[in-house]
């Protein structure tokens, strides 16, 4: 099923920088064209729909701040996951680790509910990180000790985490003044992330998310550990010869991704939500997997892909509000955008030539086990 018989496709040895930036743009252009016809076909004004999808959310200061609020958890989790994916550690349970982090951070907030102090928020963050780490430790232990695949364990534990949170908000953490509704007390002021810009919801966590992405980039690019992680992913045999401990690296990757997901959970409850409720996340843990790969597993790329992904959600809501597009249409459109973006990678990584070359598998950072 190769593309053509007369032309040959071969991997590029060096990726031209221009292409790296041009292809996502091309993908967006293709999506816009495809979207134009879909909206037209569905009977909606295509210009207006596209405008409200991609442009109008970016025109106001408030819109931009919302973009940050939505993108922050995606970026934080995506960066953590990407580090693991580089080492072929398949944590797809960030959703559950986020939920655990929200619980542990939230429990701290509720424990000091009627107290004030600048130490409460840092303590919550530490609790959130530890919560996420502890939850990621289960797949880590099972993988390193029993060789149980982390795809299954991390995914199954996500469902367990949601049910655990539900047990708590319907039980011991229920707001005593909340008329028996499943929600905790509202957190005290000391347990809420400071708002950076008056009149918006842009909280301290959004800036920290960006800093974390930069830290992830430093870790992967400039440290021995980062090097070891990359080698483990690309050439496990070489890693073994070099004496890197696979067990340690697997633990490290799961602790980083679990800890960051947990912290993102704490940020959600101490930022835009402000209390514990039965469901903390609208699928951030899963969406972040897409974000990680769209960002080509590069922490700085993940910032961009996180923002784009957030825009696609906010744009979808916007199009529902302004043009009356059904949610189903925005879902289809979002799927198309992702398809084009993922396909456009092809142009970055391969070139089309006339000459034949040796076949090869391309390890763009992948697989399980």
């Amino acid at each position, binding site marked *: 099923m190769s593309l053509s018989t007369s032309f040959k496709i071969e991997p590029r040895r060096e990726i031209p920088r221009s292409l790296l930036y041009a292809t996502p743009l091309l993908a967006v252009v293709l999506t816009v064209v495809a979207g134009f016809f879909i909206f037209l076909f569905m009977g909606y004004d295509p210009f207006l729909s596209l405008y409200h999808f991609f442009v109008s959310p970016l025109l106001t200061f408030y819109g931009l701040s*919302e973009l940050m*609020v*939505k993108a922050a958890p995606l970026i934080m989790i995506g960066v953590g996951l990407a580090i693991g994916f580089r080492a072929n550690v398949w944590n797809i349970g960030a959703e559950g680790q986020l939920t655990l982090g929200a619980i542990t951070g939230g429990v701290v907030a509720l424990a000091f509910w009627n107290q004030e102090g600048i130490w409460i928020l840092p303590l919550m963050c530490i609790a959130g990180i530890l919560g996420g780490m502890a939850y990621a430790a289960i797949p880590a232990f099972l993988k390193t000790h029993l060789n149980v695949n982390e795809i299954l364990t991390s995914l199954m534990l996500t469902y367990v985490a949601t*049910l655990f949170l*539900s047990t708590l908000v*319907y039980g011991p953490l229920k707001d005593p003044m909340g*008329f*028996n*509704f*499943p929600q905790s007390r*509202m957190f005290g002021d000391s347990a809420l992330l400071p708002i950076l810009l008056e009149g918006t*919801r842009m909280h301290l966590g959004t800036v920290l998310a960006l800093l974390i992405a930069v830290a992830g980039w430093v870790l992967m690019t400039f440290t021995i550990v980062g090097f070891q992680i990359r080698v483990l992913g690309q050439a496990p045999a070489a890693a073994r010869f070099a004496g890197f401990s696979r067990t340690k690296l697997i633990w490290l990757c799961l602790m980083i991704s679990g800890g960051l997901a947990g912290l993102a959970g704490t940020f*959600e409850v101490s*930022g*835009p*939500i*402000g*209390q514990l*409720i*039965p*469901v*903390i*996340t*609208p699928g951030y843990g899963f969406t972040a997997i897409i974000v990680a790969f769209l960002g080509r597993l590069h922490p700085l790329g993940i910032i961009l892909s996180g923002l784009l992904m957030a825009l696609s*959600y*906010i744009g979808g*809501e*916007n199009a*529902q*509000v*302004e043009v*009356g597009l*059904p*949610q*189903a249409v925005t879902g289809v459109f979002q799927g198309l955008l992702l398809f084009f973006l993922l396909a456009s990678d092809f142009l970055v990584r391969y070139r089309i030539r006339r000459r034949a070359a040796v076949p090869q598998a391309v390890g763009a950072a992948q697989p399980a086990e």
Partner: protein
Amino acid sequence: MIKPHSRRHFLAGSGAAAGALALGGPAAFAADPLKVGFVYVGPVGDFGWTHGHDLGRKAIEKEFGDKVKTTFVESVAEGPDAERVIRQLAAAGNKLIFTTSFGFMNQTVRVAKQFPKVMFEHATGYQTAKNVSAYNARFYEGRDVIGTIAGHMTKTGKFGYIASFPIPEVVMGINAFILAARKVRPDAEIKVVWVNSWFDPGKEADATKALIDQGCDVITQHTDSPAPIQTSGSRGVWCFGQASDMSSFAPDQHLTAILDVWGPYYVERTRAVLDGTWQTSNVWQGFKEGMVEMSPYNKNLPAEVVAAAEKIRKGIIDGSHHSFTGPIKDQDGKERVAAGERMSDEALLTMDWYVEGVTA
């Protein structure tokens, strides 16, 4: 996804009258259609909770034609997304916004502060403000009617209840059902299976099978899909529809359904905004106001059972009957409500204990 649920007042409206003033003069918008926004927790195609609210939205369109323009956003997660969506609707010029799930309450109140000229209506919550009203339906009245029917129709004396989450609304519904049934059949009991979901047809069907296999011959549900109806129909046991008339899924076994009828309230509130008479309110409406209705009774129901059911419904409407009238004992046999006493709305709306005859 947590959902609806219920409550209303007693924190009620502090600044009731101020609402109308905040409108900023309806005349200013006379030429343009009034924009009315809806925030839904599920898809309009859920055939349950959200579907019901969407029928209410259509009722507004039908009533006012081009004097209104309605917009909805569906499947909005109860968290940070909800606040943004509500704000977007307000910023887009919607002057009346219905937020139709309990989990939207805090977000609605927060956005309402930023948009004092926009009127908000929040379903099943308990907070109100100058421009935020609360509304809810007395679904337990419907449970009283179907419990009465179940008491007459059962042979085994065992009922199955497919439940979502133990919020007061659901607990209240279970209790209303069995209290009514035991008036007809004193030894009746009800088995509750929690599926921990508002919507999972497969799991709801499985729970139905589990209950039927354990001897239940009447099934009722507090989840959204018609799957329990369908399963009951194929197994030949009686069942009741939830939120919509689901009789097409079990024409012979679907005895009646408790209908959520939001249309009249939505029309009334929209008219109030158009007329400039909107005020903060906090209502909990039932059969009397038409927010809860029973769908047509099945032809398989004997006339005397229909008569018994109608007696309950009419008694509720004229005030001679109240579903939670003492003596009421809890699961442990302790008397909670004295003979002749009626439970207050406050006690009902926070109900977290089960009456005698419940296995949950």
